[in-house]
């Protein structure tokens, strides 16, 4: 920075219009274009990914459903494809999807889903019930409970959920259809009370629903 350098000629002050133009076209518009372009490309990519993966995801979901249905309804109780035989019931104002197990045309049991609020978000329970109202099995199809605490309701992590098989509304008595903390018979988990409580209450309510609408569950309106 020596003092001998000649001073620069002052630039002409840009007019207000020119400054506005620069601001609009070079400043804002360019950024808007960049961001708009990014949004467009990412949206296209997402649409593409969704389209490509839609069929395989539906296929795996169907396989999962088949496997879950197989876990709550023993194979010797049916000779039909469980997942391929869904029926929709209109009960107490809510819609319920029911999978009927048939042997030689006779309905031997049903599987149906119950949604229940867990510790964090909804969980989806699948109940298998035979024609007398006895539980064949219970599985959790979907949940977002705390990993390490609430996820002991999964059959792959603990045998807790398998202990429902063989129980019914009278066994144990109605007052004991609750977790131990609530005076019932079912174990809660260390560190997780709300999750098993939701499952036990959900199963109990599912059994009550079945008992109240037994005919609708077992009867085949289509045949």
């Amino acid at each position, binding site marked *: 920075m020596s003092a001998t350098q000649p001073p620069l000629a002052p630039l002409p002050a840009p007019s207000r219009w020119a400054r506005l133009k620069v601001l609009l076209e070079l400043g804002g518009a360019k950024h808007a274009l*960049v961001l708009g372009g990014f949004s467009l490309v990412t949206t296209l*990519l997402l649409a593409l*990914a969704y389209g490509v*993966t839609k069929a*395989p995801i539906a296929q795996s979901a169907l396989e*999962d459903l088949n496997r879950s249905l197989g876990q709550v309804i023993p194979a010797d109780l049916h000779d039909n494809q469980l997942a391929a035989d869904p029926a929709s019931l209109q009960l107490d104002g809510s819609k319920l999807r029911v999978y009927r197990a048939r042997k030689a045309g006779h309905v031997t049991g049903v599987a149906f889903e119950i949604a229940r609020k867990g510790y964090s978000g909804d969980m989806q329970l699948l109940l298998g019930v035979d024609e007398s109202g006895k539980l064949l099995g219970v599985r959790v199809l979907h949940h977002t409970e705390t*990993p390490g*605490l609430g996820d002991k309701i999964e059959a792959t992590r603990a045998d807790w959920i398998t202990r429902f098989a063989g129980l019914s509304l009278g066994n144990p008595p109605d007052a004991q259809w609750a977790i131990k903390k609530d005076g019932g018979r079912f174990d809660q988990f*260390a560190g997780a009370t709300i999750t098993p409580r939701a499952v036990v209450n959900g199963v109990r309510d599912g059994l009550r629903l079945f008992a109240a609408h037994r005919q609708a569950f077992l009867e085949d309106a289509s045949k």
Partner: protein
Amino acid sequence: MSQIKHILTDGLWRNNVVFSQMLSLCPALAVTSAATQGLGMGVATMAVLIASNALVALLRGLITEEVRIPAFVLIIATLVTIVDLAMNAWLHELHKVLGLFIPLIVVNCLILGRAESFASKNSVVLSALDGVGMGAGFTLALTLLGALREIGGSGTVFAGASTLLGPAMGVLEIRLYPGDGALVMILPAGGFIVLGLMIAAKRTLDNRKAAPRRQATSVDDAASLPAAS
């Protein structure tokens, strides 16, 4: 060569996300009630981090300074969603185990932080390498944290590793003592306690390593401090 080594050790130890930068503590504490889950979350995050770093570095010429943050968020969110969909479609079994964690990756500030502080200023290769280093450091921290909490809380290490990594990894599943341990270790409080002890341990190690050198060059000490960001 030394630059590569520097980037890798930076992520793994010197500037470790959890222990030094103290970022991403929410996923670090939330999923580490067991070692397997920490490992799963770490690996999934590392995969997304490598890809997002490489992509941000590739597109850094296109992104203008003023809109870089929303652009990074778009890139990361898209990437995670595509990974989620693809895993659900073609790696369905793995998705069932890791599915819970994947949406959490979007909000992991580590990914955005590396995009901003490294990938937007470096080449694709170096950025991917930074993703490897930082991701490995994150995985190391989460697995270690998960293992310590699992040992204290459940008496096992890597329980359920076979569902995540395949039946061959069942050998990792070890029970150290029968019965349950201290419940507090699995609860959030245990996470904070173990994390605090681990950070203290790392500081102590770093200080001990820096101590002999301090007599020679006292300036060097500044380098061992975590980078403020």
